[in-house]
């Protein structure tokens, strides 16, 4: 800040806006490009010079992807996997986080257990891809929705535990003590007093889990082979084949894949910012 605390001058403000505009363009350009490709006829897609604004729009690729091919099914699979794994991770992770935040374990086990949980996210996921593949193979779960739900739940758990632990710590201990003196059990106090107070945190955490599960690619690719359990990201990448790249279909599916996440993020935007900063600082 220049001028001893006064706001930036006209030049400075211009610079700020220029940078902001640049950031927005950089972030949105690929999205815009995907959106336009999904609406362009094949001849326009690769036209030189590129057709930025004016082209003849068509919904053919959407129809192709979702009516002719299996993208509708991928979409459903993705939704089932994302929602179920998020729900599982939230239930298990929230209880674990509550325990870690509230009970005094001997030998500093609270911190240690929390770190152990976090450490499972420190190595690259690919490291576990082969063991998990073999495990699922033994369990005869390959190419099933269940396998993805299990793996994603495991992936999201550390995240839920750490975020929710931060939120629980924010809630004064006296509130649940009051609830218990008032005659409520520990779980009752958790349900009636504590959980309503951490709802913003739960919402933020849920959105993160949904996004991670929705976008996950590596394990979806490793563990699924057929339309049986294939998710959208894998389905989309499958349109890059030896013979051709179906830009239109891929873009149409991509646009549709983006929508749920966008809606969620907008819906909980307010909580998201708070959740992130709380989880980050107090976690």
């Amino acid at each position, binding site marked *: 800040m220049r001028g001893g605390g006064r706001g930036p001058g006209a030049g400075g403000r211009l610079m700020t806006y220029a940078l902001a505009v640049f950031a927005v363009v950089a972030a949105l350009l690929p999205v815009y490009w995907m959106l336009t490709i999904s609406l362009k006829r094949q001849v326009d897609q690769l036209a030189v010079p590129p057709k930025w604004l004016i082209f003849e729009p068509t919904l053919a690729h959407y129809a192709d992807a979702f009516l002719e091919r299996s993208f509708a099914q991928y979409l459903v699979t993705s939704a089932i996997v994302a929602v179920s794994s998020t729900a599982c991770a939230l239930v298990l992770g929230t209880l674990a986080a509550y325990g870690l935040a509230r009970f005094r374990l001997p030998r500093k086990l609270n911190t240690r257990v929390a770190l152990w949980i976090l450490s499972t996210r420190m190595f690259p996921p690919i490291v576990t891809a082969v063991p998990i593949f073999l495990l699922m193979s033994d369990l005869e779960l390959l190419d099933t929705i269940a396998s993805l739900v299990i793996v994603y739940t495991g992936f999201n758990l550390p995240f839920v535990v750490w975020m929710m632990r931060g939120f629980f710590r924010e809630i004064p201990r006296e509130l649940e003590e009051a*609830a*218990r*003196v*008032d005659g409520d059990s520990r779980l009752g106090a958790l349900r009636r007093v504590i959980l309503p*107070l951490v709802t913003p945190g739960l919402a933020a955490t849920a959105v993160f889990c949904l996004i991670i599960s929705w976008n996950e690619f590596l394990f979806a690719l490793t563990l699924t082979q057929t339309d049986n359990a294939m998710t959208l990201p894998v389905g989309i990448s499958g349109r890059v084949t030896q013979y051709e790249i179906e830009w239109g279909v891929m873009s149409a599916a991509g646009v549709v894949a983006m929508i749920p996440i966008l809606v969620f993020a907008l819906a909980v935007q307010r909580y998201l910012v708070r959740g992130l900063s709380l989880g980050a600082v107090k976690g």
Partner: protein
Amino acid sequence: MNVSFINVSKSFGPTVVVDDLTLSTEDGEFVVLLGPSGCGKTTTLRMLAGLEEATTGDIMIGPERVNDVPTQRRDVAMVFQSYALYPHMTIAENIAYPLRVRKIERGEIERRVARVAKMLEIDGLLARRPRELSGGERQRVALARAVVRSPRVYLMDEPLSNLDAKLRVQMRGELKRLQHELGTTTVYVTHDQSEAMTLAHRVAVMRAGRLQQFDTPLNIYNRPANRFVAEFVGSPAMNFIEGRRDEGARVFAGGGLSLPLSDSQLDLTDGRERVTLGVRPEHVHVSTSAQDGWTPATVYVTELMGNETFVFLRLPGGEKVIARAPASFRAEQETPAWVRFETERAVFFDADSGERLG
């Protein structure tokens, strides 16, 4: 229901917070646990609530040993220092909470909430949320949540300490009336000796985890068990003068003064050379003109309180004492004054242990 602690101790790791506490209340009694911060009074209360576990000893509510009874089944109600109101609930829902978790029928809940709300004059606030309330109003809501049912014991952890001075005195009176009306055993924790004196049937003075004295406010004030109690209770605090007992002259000599001792005082200090004399400021009389038989001293400073004046004096031996004088008392600093001690009202302490003699 009466409450008993029998040889109760509590340690956090190597730190002993409550040390071998034995204390029994009567049914319907208002007992105040009084002591400086860190004396173990809050831990004692929390053990009674079941929020802390006793390391050893028995905690009884009525005939029942409650050590292993979880908090929610002890049937006690507690008012927290921070009030601990549920921020996401309305005032009505806050007050109804203890009834709701007991699955009491809806109409009955509404009737009882309305009744206590009226009693505590918060019936206009029922639809609001805690954050919209002032400190005094929140305090009443916390009380209402406790008295909406009829528990075996009320527990109060410094419930007035977050209020401003005027409101505190007002609520103090209302608490006393409320407890009298309800007739339920109440254990109240505070570090404020005036709250203890005004509210309690009996006061338990604690220090460093140990019970110092458990007695009526009057006995605590007039016959403190030791120097600590004498110093902690009463404002301004009791004066102490170190000295020795002169058997032959039948006097207490110390601080540059010589005070005559009665037969009984000679008896109870018998066999001791050094003793500490304790005398309350109201039993020290001060005059700006020379009086026959009074001790000359120097005015250190005076504090006008409006209805009375505290006079800080320096004795010939250099020790300082405080006297309560009428509001009309005037004296400049470092001017001479004369003091008289009502020795017949004085108490004596062992110079080493600080225990009261007699």
